[in-house]
């Protein structure tokens, strides 16, 4: 600086006054958004996915959660878009405010959204996330926020409840291995498969699903000859299909969203028979795959929800959902585990809140205790939580069939009750499924 300032003591004092004033003003503006304990509105955040291969499930998850508010909390839909809100929902006299968050199946984006909802928006309860690895990260985050409650959406990695065991993280839908209960036996006894390959996305949820299948298939005498794990985000599944060995009886497909469609199309184009040579994981058994068309007829897979069931509990749920959120083709929204499990999760939150009369004080202790002991009856069967706050569920084997009007739909062909996370002691905290484990 070429010049010299001539500053008297008076100027120096005023300079410091400016600094202090600046600091105080900023302090006044800055101390905002410390979430206040809920006396009045109850804020619920819903976390789903809107990017990446699972973006196809965004509509299903949000619609399921909102439908629970409409059916059981007096809410009114503000529109049929996925992030259109719900007005007028109340529970025990407290109005409910919902906020939406969405990520892209990667843990750090899910964490950032969870933090934004919990600490910036100030939700009291978080419903979500959707995907396996996100669930593990959010469950770990839950341990750092003991005064908030986290209810799982559809994330189905085994470790989330069997290893992480956050005391305020509740999973009412079960994990991916539970969603395969019955399928291993079905493959061995009904389809007479002995030698099987596994093709799936390379992360915790498909590994968990494989574990559930292997847990029944291998003790019965079956063999897994090859496991092909493809990184998430790959769009060229043709080379993955080319890796399937030619001497297998069939393969288990463990993909979700658009990856499922890519594999099924490629396999059918190469002359493969999906009904006799493939079994589907739970995300494969979803109406978003129906664009593949008639080759899907006869394809069976494991699912925690009785798709296509004629049971009144299921049909009344499906018809009611269809009335509020109509989808084309008819029933495509209701015929998805993503819709149903987010619906169950929101219902669990509402029931828990009703039990404690909306009292979230004392670090939500009473509310969390109510959730732990909840006995939920859902369209997909009765739900109770085990000691790790994971559900003991009824599982189903569902099949894609051709309906009367020629379009594709589902049929439930087997029911497996009382499935718990450890599969009767087979799995434990140390048995985290991975690419090669469990062995076979």
């Amino acid at each position, binding site marked *: *600086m*070429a*010049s*010299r*300032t*001539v*500053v008297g003591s008076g*100027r120096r004092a005023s*300079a410091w006054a*400016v*600094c202090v004033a*600046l*600091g105080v003003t*900023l*302090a006044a503006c*800055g*101390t*905002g*958004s*410390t979430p206040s304990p809920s006396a009045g509105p109850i804020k619920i955040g819903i976390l789903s996915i*809107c990017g990446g291969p699972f973006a196809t499930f965004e509509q299903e998850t949000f619609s399921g959660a909102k439908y629970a508010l409409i059916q059981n909390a007096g809410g009114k839909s503000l529109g049929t878009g996925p992030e259109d809100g719900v007005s007028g929902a109340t529970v025990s006299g407290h109005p409910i405010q919902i906020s939406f*968050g969405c990520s*892209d199946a*990667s*843990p*750090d*984006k899910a*964490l950032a*959204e969870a*933090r*934004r909802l919990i*600490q*910036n928006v100030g939700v009291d309860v978080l419903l979500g996330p959707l995907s*396996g*690895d996100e669930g*593990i*990260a959010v469950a*770990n*985050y839950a*341990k*750092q*926020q003991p005064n908030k409650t986290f209810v799982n959406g559809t994330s189905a*990695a085994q470790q989330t409840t069997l290893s*992480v065991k956050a005391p305020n993280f509740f999973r009412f839908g079960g994990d991916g291995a539970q969603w395969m209960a019955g399928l291993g036996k079905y493959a061995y006894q009904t389809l007479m498969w002995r030698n099987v390959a596994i093709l799936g996305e*390379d*992360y*915790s949820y498909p590994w968990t699903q494989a574990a559930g299948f292997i847990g029944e298939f291998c003790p019965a005498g079956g063999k897994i000859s090859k496991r092909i794990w493809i*990184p*998430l985000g790959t769009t060229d599944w043709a080379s993955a299909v080319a890796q399937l060995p030619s001497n297998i009886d069939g393969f288990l497909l463990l993909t979700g969203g658009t990856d499922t469609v890519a594999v099924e199309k490629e396999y059918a184009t190469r002359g493969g028979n999906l009904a006799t040579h493939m079994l589907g994981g739970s995300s494969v058994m979803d109406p978003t795959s129906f664009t593949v068309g008639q080759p899907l007829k006869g394809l069976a897979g494991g699912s925690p929800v009785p798709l296509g069931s004629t049971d009144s509990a299921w049909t009344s749920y499906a018809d009611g959902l269809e009335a509020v959120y109509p989808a084309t083709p008819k029933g495509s929204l209701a015929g998805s585990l993503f819709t149903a499990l987010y619906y169950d999760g929101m219902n669990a939150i509402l029931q828990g809140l009703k039990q404690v009369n909306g009292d979230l004080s004392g670090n939500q202790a009473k509310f969390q205790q109510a959730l732990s002991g909840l006995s939920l009856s859902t369209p997909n069967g009765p739900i109770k939580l085990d000691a790790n706050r994971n559900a003991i569920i009824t599982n189903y084997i569902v099949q894609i069939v051709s309906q009367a009007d020629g379009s594709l739909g589902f049929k439930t062909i087997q029911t497996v009750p009382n499935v718990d996370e450890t599969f009767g002691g087979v799995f434990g905290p140390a048995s985290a499924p*991975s*690419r090669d484990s469990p062995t076979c």
Partner: protein
Amino acid sequence: MRIGRLSGWLLLKRAALAGVLLVILLVPQLFSAFVASSIGVQALVLGIAAASIIFLNSAVGMVSLAQTALYGIAAYTTAKLAVVQGVDPWVAAMAAVGVTVVVALLFGAIASRSEGIYFLMITLASAVITYYFFSQVTAFGSHEGINAVEPPRLLGKPFVDPTGMYYAALICSVIIYVLIRYLRRTPFGYALQGVRDEPVRMRALGFNVPLLRTSAFVVGAFIASIAGVLLVWYNSNISPGAIDLTRTIDLLTIAVIGGLGRLEGAWIGALLFTVVQTYSPAYTDRFETLIGLIFLAVVLASPGGIAGIARSLDRFIRRRLGESVDAPALASGRQP
């Protein structure tokens, strides 16, 4: 009268600067825990990472896209040692810095033979290799990454009470800033300047240009590794999504917006980026478009970034108020 106005302006500048510094010092006391951590800590840590890019560019004339990958390596090493091996966090941090420096030697040895745009592309390739490495190797958790990474007890829990984490990041930022400015004045720093401006002449003078470039790259990696350790402690989690191509471009964006030629630009750019990233989801999903537009505007209109704009504005006002601004300061415009 003119002297009075000029000195008045300088006084105002100093007062504003002092005010800003005071606020920075007192962020945990003045703002909520969310702001102190999501904005404060994140801006400081990203600023350190961006400072490594700015250092490499202004000291040696190399724009490196590998810095994200390097801080990822540091973060993963810290996480793996601390969580899986149960090593003390401080020891894990030091090991992480060491590992990153060694890997940087490898990357640098290959990349230092290239210049300009080729260097940019090779560092981009290195970043992508690193990303795929961490997303495929199960020892590092592959897609799930590593969770439950705990910072040292001294720093506290970042999202419950960010005070410890914030001051640690602040102290590191100050140290890095001082270190880089100091380096400029050492013989090593002057040699780097020579390599930046006249590599052929330097070679003729007998300097080992590739070795100098590699050394600069290693220094940049050291800075980035500090950011990586702080980042994984702050997030309690590291996964491949934190070091993918989008994050690599984001870090470059921060450096460019702040000002590729000025060291303060690293933290200015990081603050702007963090604020936009944290608060824009409430208004729009199109955060990337917003950041991209700001990036484009800066590159088109003011290559010096925000720091450059501030400097030009300051010079403009000083000239209007009667000061004769010396020419050399105008011409160089580049000093960290």
